[in-house]
């Protein structure tokens, strides 16, 4: 995206995009991340998007809202978004702040996120449930 160490990486895995945030982002970086990710969703015709936020030590109102709007836009483009890796203290602070992820699904980590996508996008993923 930018010069210097990557703040964010976006990898493709089949029809799923895995976006990992590596460090705290300020608002403009967050917006840039949103734009990049949204255009990649279009490019790759992704059906699933995983955003890994495990590295974020704060998810404030702006970050929450940006994550939600990424998920909303992705849905309009036919992709399901899962947010993964929200840390315990971050989860609690978000709730206190009054933010939630709305209808956007959340999972514990990348592995769980992939399992979730596999389930909702209708592919067998070890056949937990019949």
């Amino acid at each position, binding site marked *: 995206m930018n010069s210097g160490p990557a703040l964010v990486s976006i990898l493709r895995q089949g029809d799923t995009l895995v976006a990992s945030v590596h460090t*705290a*982002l*300020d*608002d*403009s*970086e967050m917006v840039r991340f949103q734009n990049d990710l949204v255009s990649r969703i279009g490019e790759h015709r992704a059906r699933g998007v995983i955003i890994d936020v495990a590295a974020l*030590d*704060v*998810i*404030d*109102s*702006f970050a929450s*809202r940006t994550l939600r709007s990424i998920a909303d836009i992705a849905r309009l483009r036919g992709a399901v978004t899962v947010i993964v890796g929200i*840390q*315990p*203290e*971050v989860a*609690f*602070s*978000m709730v*206190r*702040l*009054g*933010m939630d992820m709305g209808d956007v699904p959340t999972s514990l980590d990348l592995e769980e996120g992939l399992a979730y996508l596999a389930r909702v996008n209708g592919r067998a993923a070890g056949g937990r449930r019949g």
Partner: protein
Amino acid sequence: MSTARVPDEPAQPGGAVDVAALIPMLRRIVAARVGEHPAAEDLVQETLVRVLEAEDRIEPGMIEPYAIATARNVMATMWRRKDSESRNRHRALDPSVPDEAEDVVVASEEQSAINEALRRLTDREREVLLAHEISGQATRSLAEDSGSTAGAVAAQLKRTRARLRVEYLLALEHTEPPTDECRPVLLALSSADRRRQREVDAGRHLLECDLCAKLSQPLLGRGPLRDNEIHVAISADPDIVAARQAARELAIRAGFSGADLTMLATAVSEVARNIVRFARSGEVTIELVDGPRAGIHVVARDTGPGIDDVEVALKDGFSTYDGLGLGLPGARRLMDEFNIVSEPGHGTTVTMTKWFDKKGTA
């Protein structure tokens, strides 16, 4: 101008002092000393914040004299801070590295001041204070010992503590009060006894007595400024991240951990963003406090357009720019205390505190 106070702190019904009315006077006082200095308005704001903080502890008639004394103290502090700041300051962060040798000296001075202050109490006062302060549970048994009631013992303890604070400060200054009026005035301030303050005409005395004006600050306000304080200038997006990281670091130093740290950092993020969005530039000050309990005190200050109706801004979902609605009310929920003062056309100051010792809060 409007002020709003969080309900967890018992507000004085109808006692809200019109601090705005002080502004013209304070501007005159500050201008007389520093002229057209760019920091003049900051000094006025700082003074207002401190007056507001002491508001519960002083009788209304004393607000003006106290504001004047405070303005003088604030200006004196600014000059003192100036040269150390120009040495340490790099861009936005000013982590004021504490000087260890100096700390040791300060600590031993404080220790001997405490001993001296204790010595000046009567034996009875000292006994009760030592037996109680320390154990926290002995009020009732102390009352039994002295054939008195727990309430009376508690009141006596309160008076003793107030005296101890006064004597401690005097010992620290290595001075005796110049007039006979001083001790009663200082005692009335220290015990936040408004009736006594009126009786001894504390307001007039503060204007006449330099020593008492100086001591009024630690007795009523936040205490003397220390190194445990970080200023982050806020003018652009990256400063929001810098402010919340600074808050987190200071809080770790103070012993915060877990969700408290994250809640504090999140709240700082919200108020800093408010500055960037509304006012373009301002400053966030993060400070360790140890009285009445240990905690982190945050002041976010700007000289932007101000908020017309603070009450409305504190309602969930209030939005003056695209998408924001949770900044202020959210920050309020994340912190233990929250206070906002805004003057349309002149700026907004948010002060908030998170206590380290959680007893009695949710």
